[in-house]
């Protein structure tokens, strides 16, 4: 071929065509970006939020349900000039609010891009309806229905926990699972059971035109994904009992925990003061108020507060003493207003002397347990204090003390039971003896346990020697709980010894006033309540009032621990509260004879006594 001008021009023509085709090859085949852009252009994904699982109580009552609210969504890129005043009037906000928001979107327009952001959260239905009528005037704005939590019972605010929008930190912890605008359970059952409750999001794909008008479903909806609703959860809580417990604890600081001994199911768990369910539904609005409250309503005392167990702990020492054969039901010790050792004395209250084991529980004698603990620690069977101390520690821990019980409730506290290592560290090796740690005998000193631990102790005694790990979720249609909750956990104390202690607890309640029983006020005709009072010394103010009890004696249905901060003697507040709860649970109502007591408790206000920092 000659390279004449015709051919040169033809070569030029082919080159030009090749350039065009090469560029087309690059944008049509090599570059995926345009295909993505085309999808973004023409497709709108609308998220279908699943309805969150419903939380039932043990009897099928709904503790947490759902209701519909609307979020106002904005796609800032699609917003055109609009009448700020008109929009603000429809949405019932100030024009400044809208202007501020729009200015904010402008500032972050690079970051936002084509994304849709939430402008107003959880508008009530009426507001949304007003907006929907005029929505066409405001391109870029739309409402998105989503279900929010609803609480038919004012019961268990702390237990249930709240749901709120995920923040950046949360999304970082759960990569790929949550997107901005999603909600997740943050505390309580909502958090513990987030996986079951949240369900799976779905989406609709729509085709839109250049003016952002939705034209049709993409592929007739074939590519859409349905939302999968969250699974319902059944809790072990008895909604009515929980509510009643909250009423009893009203204006008192402390906890009230009730367990069904035969299963370990938590019937009631009150931490007072708690969070009102009204506030849970709209936690964002109330969060500041809640966290500013000096009584710390977010703090779930029932599982998070470390308290000394007080005289209730005598039961544990009695059982260990029996197992270790340092004390027998018939063993009698004298008490002359306390236990004297050297120049020191651990005081006791006025009661007859000498007394046996049963009576020591019934009258809550301090001296008796000083003898028991001393015999335990100075037991010649063990080579040293260290050994006997650690043996004691093992026994105590077998009751669940000093460690997390392993309940399905989040943020449970382990508490503390001292051992030889601890005392060696504090006093030096050989620098301590039985009398140094003598206050352990009456549940004081270094011991720390939560009200849940105490309730578990009560359930263990009611079961005559074993417990199920206390838990709050029951088996239900969709949810199966861990096997560990169905296993019996035996203590190191032989089951034969428990009835001896229970007799003492029975007598503490049912001996009648004047007999010396410490908990006569807790007696309910026909219920055979067995209980033990406790009074924890409090160097900062009034003593803490403690009571654990279970009933009926022969077929225990409920085991309760009540811990009332600054409540004074165990019999003053804790015993009435716990016994009222038991009576309510077993009888369904309070007998006329005890109405006065109920009234006293409901109206009692101890808040002034509680020192807040």
């Amino acid at each position, binding site marked *: 071929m000659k390279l004449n*001008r*015709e051919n040169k*021009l*033809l070569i*030029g*023509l*082919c080159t*030009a*065509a090749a*350039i*065009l*085709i090469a*560029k*087309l*090859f690059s*944008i*049509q*085949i090599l*570059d995926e*970006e*345009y*295909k993505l*852009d*085309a*999808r973004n*252009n*023409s*497709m709108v994904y609308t998220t279908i939020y699943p309805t969150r699982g419903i939380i039932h109580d043990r009897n099928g009552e709904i503790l947490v349900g759902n209701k519909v609210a609307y979020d106002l969504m904005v796609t800032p890129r699609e917003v055109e000039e609009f009448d700020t005043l008109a929009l603000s009037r429809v949405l019932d906000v100030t024009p400044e609010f809208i202007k501020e928001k729009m200015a904010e979107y402008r500032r972050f327009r690079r970051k936002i891009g084509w994304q849709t952001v939430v402008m107003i959260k959880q508008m009530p239905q009426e507001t949304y309806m007003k907006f929907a009528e005029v929505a066409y005037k405001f391109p870029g704005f739309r409402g998105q229905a989503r279900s929010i939590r609803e609480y038919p019972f004012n019961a268990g605010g702390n237990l249930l926990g709240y749901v709120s929008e995920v923040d950046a930190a949360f999304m970082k912890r759960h990569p790929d699972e949550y997107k901005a605008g999603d909600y997740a359970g943050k505390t309580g059952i909502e958090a513990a059971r987030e996986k079951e409750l949240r369900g799976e999001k779905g989406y609709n794909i729509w*085709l*839109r*035109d*250049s*003016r952002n008008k939705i*034209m*049709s479903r993409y592929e007739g909806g074939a590519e859409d994904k349905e939302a999968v609703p969250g699974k319902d959860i059944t809790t072990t809580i008895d909604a009515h009992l929980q509510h009643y417990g909250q009423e009893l604890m009203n204006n008192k600081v402390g906890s009230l925990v009730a367990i069904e001994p035969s299963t370990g199911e938590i019937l009631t768990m009150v931490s007072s003061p708690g969070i009102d369910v009204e506030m849970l539904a709209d936690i964002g609005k109330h969060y500041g108020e809640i966290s500013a409250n000096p009584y710390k309503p977010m703090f779930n005392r029932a599982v998070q507060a470390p308290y000394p167990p007080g005289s209730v702990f005598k039961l544990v020492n009695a059982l260990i003493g029996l197992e270790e054969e340092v004390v027998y039901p018939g063993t009698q010790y004298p008490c002359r207003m306390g236990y004297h050792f050297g120049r020191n004395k651990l005081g006791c209250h006025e009661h007859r002397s000498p007394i046996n084991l049963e009576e020591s529980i019934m009258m809550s004698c301090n001296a008796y347990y000083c003898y028991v603990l001393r015999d335990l620690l100075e037991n010649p069977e063990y080579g040293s204090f260290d050994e006997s101390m650690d043996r004691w520690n093992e026994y105590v821990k077998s009751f669940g003390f000093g460690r997390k019980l392993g309940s399905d409730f989040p943020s449970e506290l382990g508490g503390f039971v001292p051992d030889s290592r601890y005392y060696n560290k504090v006093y030096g090796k050989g620098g301590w003896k039985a009398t140094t740690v003598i206050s352990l005998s009456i549940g004081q000193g270094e011991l720390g346990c939560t009200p849940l631990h105490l309730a578990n102790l009560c359930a263990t005694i009611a079961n005559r020697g074993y417990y199920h790990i206390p838990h709050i979720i029951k088996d239900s249609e969709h949810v199966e709980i861990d096997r560990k909750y169905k296993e019996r956990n035996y203590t190191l104390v032989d089951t034969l010894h428990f009835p001896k202690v229970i007799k003492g607890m029975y007598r503490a309640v049912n001996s009648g006033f004047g007999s010396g029983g410490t908990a006569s006020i807790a007696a309910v005709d026909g219920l055979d309540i067995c209980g033990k009072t406790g009074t924890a010394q409090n160097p900062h103010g009034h003593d803490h009032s403690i009571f654990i009890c279970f009933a009926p004696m022969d077929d225990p249905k409920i085991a309760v621990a009540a811990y009332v901060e600054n409540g004074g003697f165990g019999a003053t507040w804790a015993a009435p509260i716990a016994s009222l709860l038991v009576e309510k649970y077993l009888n369904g109502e309070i007998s006329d004879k005890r109405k006065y007591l109920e009234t006293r408790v409901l109206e009692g206000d101890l808040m002034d006594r509680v020192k807040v920092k």
Partner: protein
Amino acid sequence: MRDLGGHRGRGLAKTIDWWLVACWFLMIMIGWANIYASIHSSEPSSIFDFDSRSGKQFIWMMTSLGLAGLILFVIPPRAYEGLSLFIYGFTILLLIAVIFLGIEVKGSRSWFAFGPVRFQPAEISKISTSLLLATVMSQLGYRIGRMKDFIITAAIILVPMMIIVLQSETGSALVYVGFIFMLYREGLSGWLIFMVGMAILLFILTLTATPYVALLVLVGVATLCIFLYSGRFKWWLLAVVPMIVLFAFLPSLMELLSEWVVGAEQMASISAALEAGEEVAMPFVMKIKPFYILLGCSILAMPFFAFQAFREGNRFTYLALLGFIGGILLVFSTDFLFNDVLQDHQRKRIEVLLGMKEDPSGVGYNVNQSKIAIGSGGFFGKGYLKGTQTTYGFVPEQSTDFIFCTVGEEWGFMGTSLLILMFVFLIWRIIHDAERSREAFTRIYGYCVACCIFMHLFINIGMTIGLMPVIGIPLPFISYGGSSMWAFTIMLFIFIALNRNERKYF
């Protein structure tokens, strides 16, 4: 009876270039189908709906068919040569008249409106210019190298071009640049095309890179030409290339130097102050611009080349030096050209094309959306009437200037490359026929047609895929529009008629 009336020549079937006719027919059908797809929405109407563009295009197609018949069978091909000056003059009048009598569409006055029918005289002027060029240049004794002939030829092209620029239709005027290829075929020095190309390159380099880079490229190209012409290519490689490489690093060297002299911190503070528009006393080192060093060196070198040219009697070197000076002036005046000669929207389009400014929602919107539509087509496309971008109107002007997007999205790379190849075939076939004609008139006219179609093709498709700035000219035979459909049909069929006329007898 065969061949009895010998003067009528051979019959239609044997004389018409059926390839061209088939190409034309296929293209207008493709165009029609794609126009229907462009206006197709989720509520489709019939392709024959005369309220819609596809229906109207059908009318234009039918009338074009009539015009084609008229040209083939009624108008004697000999008439064009004689009438060309008259036709040319008439179109020039129309072009001027439309500035005063036309309606304004998107900021330009280039349309006549007769009731519902609109008509753009710029489309016809391509034909009349081509005809007059063919007439003038086929005259016996015409030599493009002669100054008088060249000026006449240039005037024929430039007069309508200027008027169209006055109509603010710079895009359409740009098509006339394509005639340069025809002129090249007819003997115009290739250097002219080279110079035009260089000028464009310098313009772009000055805007996108720096004047320094543009100047350096200019120095390289000019010296290459001079050394190549005088057969000293080796010298150029050994002496000039190292120099240019050295100069390429000059700006960074200068920066290092001033940093060393002035100190980095002070430099940073001075440049910050300069950016803030404050007056600062600049150290001497910072005042020296590498651009002026290079400029000074090249100006100092010029007398040396001039002396050499004088000694060797080498006229080419003089011309190259002249071109070099012109280039320097262009680099200097680019700023002026860009900011003061070009109109606002044109400047923006060039800025977006050259990536100087990103503006996906403003001027860049069309191109961006167009690229998205084409790019999303993939290899096989989304299928006819199934393009999401097309159906939902994301690309503006999709049935007219951006019709190629529809092809790209719905027919994919297969469709786009096939369509381009079809155009290449059409242009090749025109050139092929033109080269084989015995009459210069037919050949020159044929090249004119080829050039016009090529320019439209390259600019239009280049625009839709971001190779060219947004210049609103239609894709021949494919885009919606009566004026362009008629104009290109007439243009092509005049060539087919001329070509057939020759074949009749030979």
